[in-house]
């Protein structure tokens, strides 16, 4: 039994099949990448796995439990965490507070204790803050801790989002284009971070456009085109697969036309 199993997952929007009959699985410590041309359904697939969309067909199984369409906060309790393609940072908070929020499941407690600032509440908050500072140091943001999150550069926000997701100590981490919009140095940093996290036993599911990065760090690659899985396997196999090449060349030809 794998840690995360995706079985025959599918959804359509307004009669259009966005994702159809996708299957694959992820083991602890493994980095699985989902690639495909724009509009292939990668983010939609992510949104189904992480409970943002409810799939129409198929199942998501996490540690042997069926969690299909379960709300994200319930998945969080079961060890699934994610980041977002278009960044979902809490802009109204400081960098440190963003990271602390990742510890929500550990720091939450009775509301009354929070309202009256009881010692229990203070202790929980202190522990979460210590954890958050350590995580910020790990992603190289410790000096920005007290700045408004909105004032960070794009690359720093990407790392902050990863830090927030790691705060939950997930078993499965979904990363939606973590390197998009980052320069070469930042991409390199994120690259190392992901490898490090995987090495600690976390299963990582990755959507990324940077093919060099994908080929370098993935253990396993799933290729989507028009919402369907057209190939999967080790990076070397996939990059030689004629269907995959056709799918990518096809879009490039279209892009050249347009």
């Amino acid at each position, binding site marked *: 039994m794998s840690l995360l199993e995706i079985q025959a997952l599918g959804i359509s*929007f307004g009669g259009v099949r966005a994702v159809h009959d996708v299957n694959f699985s992820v083991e602890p410590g493994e980095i699985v990448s989902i690639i495909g041309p724009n509009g292939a359904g990668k983010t939609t697939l992510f*949104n189904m796995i992480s409970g*943002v*969309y409810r799939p129409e067909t198929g199942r998501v199984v996490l540690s042997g439990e069926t969690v299909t369409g379960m709300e994200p906060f319930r998945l969080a309790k079961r060890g699934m965490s994610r980041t*977002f*393609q*278009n960044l*979902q940072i809490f802009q109204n908070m400081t960098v440190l507070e963003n990271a602390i929020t990742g510890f929500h499941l550990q720091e939450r407690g009775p509301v009354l204790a929070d309202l009256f600032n009881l010692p229990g509440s203070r202790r929980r908050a202190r522990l979460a803050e210590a954890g958050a500072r350590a995580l910020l140091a790990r992603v190289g943001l410790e000096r920005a801790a007290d700045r408004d999150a909105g004032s960070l550069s794009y690359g720093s926000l990407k790392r902050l989002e990863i830090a927030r997701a790691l705060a939950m100590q997930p078993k499965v981490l979904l990363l939606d284009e973590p390197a998009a919009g980052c320069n070469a140095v930042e991409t390199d940093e994120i690259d190392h971070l992901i490898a490090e996290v995987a090495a600690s036993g976390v299963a990582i599911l990755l959507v990324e456009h940077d093919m060099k990065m994908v080929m370098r760090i993935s253990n396993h690659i799933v290729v989507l085109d028009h919402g369907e899985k057209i190939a999967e396997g080790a990076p070397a196999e996939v990059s030689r697969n004629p269907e995959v090449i056709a799918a990518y060349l096809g879009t490039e030809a279209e892009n050249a036309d347009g």
Partner: protein
Amino acid sequence: MSELLQFVFSGITVGAVYALVALGFTIIFNASGVVNFAQGEFVMLGGMITVFAHAAGLPLPLAALIAIVVTAAVGVALNRLAIEPARGAPVVSLIIITIGASIFIRGASQLIFDKQIHSFPAFSGDDPIHVLGATILMQSLWVIGGALAVFAGLWLFFTKTLLGRAVLATSNNRMAAQLVGINTKFVMTLSFALSAAIGAFGGVLVTPITLTAYDVGLALALKGFAAAMLGGMGNPKGALVGGLLLGLLEALTAGYLSSQYKDAAAFVIILAVLFFMPQGLFGRKSTDRV
């Protein structure tokens, strides 16, 4: 039976006015994404300006025309001075701006006009028509006919004219409309003018039945808003059906249950609709993109 018919008549009459207010909400909501809590003030202005222009000696049709034009100008001013400068503000700020505008217009009317209750003569006399044991005022027919004419006219405008389609395109996707060369600023101005004029027209039609005063706007705005939500925010067909439905519900509640709680019935129904169909009867379902 005749009793039921009587309630239906009065419900449709009131409902037609709610539908016009809801239509005004819809037009502005589509063009700008703003819910205009000052919509009811347009109805008040339509009635009050007609009253005072008529009292000053102008013939009723001319007085009504002036009222509609002046109110449309107020609508344009509201957009230019209060809504446009606040583009991109959070929802709560926009709510306060339009409620502020509503209070401001009310305060100004109280100074310019007075605090009395007013009316002017019905368009075709005060004799009721008898239908199957129930009666209906000629003025009610004016209200219902006027509302239907507005809806028909707007439908033609939005589907058959280039300008109307430009307005629709803007409400669907502002950015794309700008890219294809539509002057979205003008579309906003037009929407506020149109919406205010429709409200004022409703005020002109209904004043002989319900009377008017400087403070009638708020209640109308709330009902019109409720009707728009019932039908589904942003949908003109929803505004019509929502308005008529709300009017009927109120009239039937007042007739058969309790006249004191007729407004309550309306809000209970609206809460129920929001719970079970958060998009209203004809609203589009939206999915958050992340």
